[in-house]
């Protein structure tokens, strides 16, 4: 099982990473090295084993419905690259 350059480019798009050709090539090598390892666990018999997504089994956690102060808007915006009128500014999302 190995991953092609086109697949690396596809995954990079999914991950929202702009990669140059040199990075794509090096990541292809690293991903394939790891995929070689992944064969280890393909061979394990996991019939009837529940996947464990968490370290400790906790049932659904409910919190009391108590009002408390949230972060003031100016503090929430303080680290943003660009703001306007109390909002985050982003580049055009829908183009013509």
């Amino acid at each position, binding site marked *: 099982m190995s*991953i092609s350059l086109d*697949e*690396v480019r596809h*995954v*990079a798009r*999914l*991950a*929202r*990473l*702009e*990669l140059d050709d040199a*990075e794509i090539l*090096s*990541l292809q090598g*690293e*991903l394939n*090295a*790891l995929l070689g*390892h*992944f064969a*280890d*666990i*393909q061979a*394990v018999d*996991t019939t009837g*084993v*529940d*996947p*464990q*997504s*968490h*370290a*400790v089994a*906790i049932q659904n*956690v409910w*919190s*009391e419905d108590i009002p408390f102060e949230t*972060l003031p808007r100016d*503090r*929430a915006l*303080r*680290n*943003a*690259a*660009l703001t306007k009128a109390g909002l*985050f500014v*982003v*580049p*055009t*999302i829908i*183009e013509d």
Partner: protein
Amino acid sequence: MITQLTATELAQRIARRELSCREVAEAYLDRIETHDPTYGAYLAVCRDVALEQAELAQHRVDRGEAGALAGVPVAVKDNISTDGIETTCASKILQGYVPPYDATVVRKLKEAGCVILGKTNLDEFAMGSSTENSAYQITRNPWDTERSPGGSSGGSASAVAAELAPLSLGSDTGGSIRQPASLCGVVGFKPTYGRVSRYGLVAFGSSLDQIGPFGRTVEDAALLAEAISGHDAMDSTSLPNPPIDRRNLKSGSLKGRRIALPKQMFGEGTHPGVLSAVLAAVDILKREGAEFGEVSMPTIDLGVTTYYIIAPSEASSNLARFDGIRYGPRAEGGKGHVGMVERTRAEGFGHEVKARIMIGTYALSAGYYDAYYVRALQVRSLMRQEFERTFQDYDAVLSPTSPMPAFKIGEMSGDPLALKELDFCTLPANMGGMPGISLNCGFTEGLPVGLQLLAPPLEDERLLQLAHCVERALPDATRRPPIP
């Protein structure tokens, strides 16, 4: 000298007013100024804030209201949010980011009267085992400055070993507290998952991450663990249990304690000096009455693969938030919204972080999800079951913390996979939520060798008690490095 005292001794002398909080803070701040250029443990030192906190702590001491940690300085890993103090995760993508709130552990430190000295270096977003993946600087090992302190909490480990802090906080996703503790010859403790709030810890692998303490003794680590633990409504995975209780820390005994030695953690790849130091320690503990049994736990051999599917998968999701919109610098020149996000992430993340995001995105993508991610979670279940079975017969599991002593800076950086393969002793604690601790058990070629103890989830107190007995039994456990 003030900086040679343990945190416990410092706290006692402050409480008895033999030392003032300011004196202690200044002793550390001055030592950092003189010696941190050698070690590079700190990304930021906050002298003014620290002196202010020392002042406040002194008022409390004077009024007789001080807690167990009043006036004791602490260094904090730079992936833990500090209100008003830059928190970068050693990444360019968070350069200049000043959190608008404190992590719960930081709030608790402040409430306890601790003095926060500064923020310590790490592998970018805690991804790595050498602290070489920091976007800002290299951190050095106080036992040999040509060598790595380990990672990812290398700054926190190096600071405690080099007497640049009596205590520090790290985070442990696959061994990032225990492995650097081992390489720097200090104590590093990863509590049970959920006993310390993760609120304000910049998330890497949410089902694996846990904050924990570094100290020069088990007692010091327990002191800090008690202060930061306990239920927190701000973290939905926080357990309802009370804080870690250190009252019975010193009342344990090794007599009749049953300890498992998994042969998969003592394999051929283990450095001979590490192996002989750990086995020599086992002999000493036997003479003190501990009973050892060799066990076989085959899932340990699957740990690296399983972890390097699960952790990057969680990371790829967690790190999606870094998009140049709410925090961090924004890259120019990308086309439209997506182009801006793609370029910001390309410029902001280092290579290892990109690689892990790619692995995770791939493992979670259509067509591979069941083959990789779900399969890894099934193996995680099998590993947990195997540890549960072992703990039916044994109180604890003992192993080397790392199969290698501290390696030279640059020695491992050409082969990221080789470094990952060294994590096999520490990963199971994160996969199973177990508490784990590393303490020094001996030396090889002048470098410290860490011994790891693991216990079942929620047995943090018993684990600390056992570690304290082990520390007392081993002659080299608290030997200090040759530092100026």
